[in-house]
């Protein structure tokens, strides 16, 4: 990654209601990097169209599968990749009277400065688009990377963008989980501590958060992976007394360190109570 670039990685299940989550994350990236409202609107439109293709066509027979969105802001350029692991690209209408895909591709090509559809070796489809923020030379295309997402929405953000992106995604997930305003503000306090935690404690210096809002009245988060000791340092930070001398860890119903093959994670649960 070149110096100063900001990256966002968001993994979602291929469900229509997750398209709004993608737009929230990109809006947070725009806030953090100072991209103009017009260009962020274009980026949201392109991402929505590309994700919609994955939701509708990637996985057959109404099955759900992973979709990964990666955005990278580097100087005067934004690159976006939307990846699925499904049956391949089908730029044709699904059935009679469906105009949407016929309009979706022209929309992407009109709004992006460049656009391509790739078929990665390990299957699926990757739609890549690039937006130039001002006149300037284009960099080399980013090599594809990433891996399949699990069911919960996953966000990984580098550097200063973490705070805005994670706060927006958290707020939306908490709303969808039906948490009360009080509990949502607890969630925001927790996400603030997570997103401002020293990035050196996170693997590859990416602030990673998985959020599962699919259990009604309950928000489940898994933060990480961390480098050795990083997860415990975050928990210690959460246990420090905050305002009213109550530790943030006490606001949650559960704060645990759980190891995984990629490193330690911190699992946090908030119930609606």
């Amino acid at each position, binding site marked *: 990654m070149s110096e100063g670039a900001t990256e966002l990685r968001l993994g979602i299940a291929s469900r*229509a*209601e997750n*398209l*709004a989550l993608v*737009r929230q994350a990109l809006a947070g990236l725009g806030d953090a990097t100072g991209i103009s*409202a*017009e260009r962020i*609107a*274009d980026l*949201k*439109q392109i991402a*929505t*169209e590309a994700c*919609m293709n994955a*939701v*509708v066509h990637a996985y057959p027979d109404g099955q759900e599968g992973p979709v990964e969105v990666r955005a990278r802001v580097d100087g005067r350029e934004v690159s976006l990749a939307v990846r699925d692991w499904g049956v391949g690209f089908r730029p044709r209408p699904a059935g009679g*009277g*469906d*105009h*949407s*895909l*016929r*309009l*979706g591709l*022209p*929309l992407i090509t*009109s*709004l992006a400065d460049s656009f391509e559809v790739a078929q990665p070796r390990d299957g699926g489809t990757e739609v890549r688009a690039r937006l130039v923020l001002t006149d300037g030379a284009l960099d080399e295309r980013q090599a594809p990377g990433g891996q399949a997402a699990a069911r919960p929405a996953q966000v990984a953000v580098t550097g200063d963008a973490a705070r805005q992106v994670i706060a927006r995604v958290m*707020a*939306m997930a908490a*709303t*969808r989980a039906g948490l009360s305003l009080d509990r949502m503000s607890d969630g925001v306090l927790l996400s603030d501590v997570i997103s401002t935690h020293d990035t050196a404690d996170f693997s590859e210096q990416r602030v990673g958060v998985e959020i599962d809002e699919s259990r009604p009245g309950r928000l489940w988060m898994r933060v990480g992976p961390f480098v050795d000791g990083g997860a415990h340092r975050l928990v210690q930070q959460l246990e420090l007394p905050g305002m009213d001398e109550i530790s943030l860890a006490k606001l949650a119903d559960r704060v645990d360190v759980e190891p995984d093959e990629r490193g330690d994670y911190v699992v946090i649960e908030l119930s609606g109570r």
Partner: protein
Amino acid sequence: MQVSGEVAVSAPREGVGLVTLTGEHDLGTVGAVREALERAQAEHDAVVVDLCGATFIDSSILGAILEGRRQAREQERGFAVACDNSSKPVRRVLEVTGLARELPAHPSVEAALEAVMPRAGSA
């Protein structure tokens, strides 16, 4: 925080059904938008789609609107779209797809209602 967009059907003038979209609309709400368009077509002589309060629409919503217009034409009913400049992303989508001219999109609900009224009156 509004999680998704909302759609409502009203009848501001006799014979005209007004389908109002507010907030963000995409594949997650297209079913509700289609249903509202169908209801408005079934209950009224002409339909106006108000996008002035919509902050985002994707191509699935454009597809639903185009389908609504196709049905209206088949049944020789009035159909118009209103989109002012308050939502630039929506305006931009209509413009880059050429639909601002083709639909056409009127600059206000009033203008769109006027555009369908003669047909509503004669139907």
